[in-house]
């Protein structure tokens, strides 16, 4: 029941494991970016767009909503 290195079956399981390794690395890479903080400029942009919509006037340079 214990899985150790010796129990791996190289030929039959190799392909699938390699597949999994690619998928796993891809997700690690992707998730690392996903977990980063969103840059302020993107958040500010959304605020400005929202503010502009709601006040029905063009975005001003300091039109940030608190």
């Amino acid at each position: 029941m214990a899985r150790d290195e010796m129990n791996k079956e190289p030929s039959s399981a190799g392909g699938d494991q390699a597949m999994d390794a690619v998928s796993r690395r891809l997700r690690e890479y992707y998730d690392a970016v996903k977990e980063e903080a969103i840059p302020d400029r993107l958040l500010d942009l959304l605020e400005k767009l929202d503010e502009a919509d709601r006040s029905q006037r063009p975005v001003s340079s300091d039109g940030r909503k608190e």
Partner: protein
Amino acid sequence: MTWSFKREMLASLPNLRAFAVSLSGQQDKADDLVQDTIMKAWAKQDSFEPGTNIKAWLFTILRNEFYSQMRKRGREVQDSDGLFTERLSVHPGQMGSLDLKDFQVALARLPDDQREAIVLVGASGFSYEEAAEVCGCAVGTIKSRLSRARAQLQIDLQISGEADYGPDETSSAVLSRSASS
């Protein structure tokens, strides 16, 4: 409508950024891309049907934006593997591990269509059908791009499935821990 649209956008930003970084391989370009996507999406929010898949909608906008910018720049990145990988930016924080850097380089070497297929299905969580919709191609095309991408990454990362199995200090540690308990 506007309020919840904004919330939906906010909730989608981490995923959009990850997709943008995966596509462009460059952090600053990726954030420019996300910025353009936010503006485009905001301007055409009335064309979004509430209740449909906003993630797919936003990804489609970002993808189209990516390719139109690439065309404008004369596809500077596409054919010059060396130039592209040389300028890959790797975030000093989480992205700093050698493993992820290797992966980013390998991913950047893939043809665009294969890269987007494997990212959409393998990481962004789209079904084959949704990915096909985002890319504007047939489901079968997504599947074949995906398998070519996987095969290529396997070669580039020298993943044999046996000796060099995975990134695996962590998982083998977990395995040996659970084996010994």
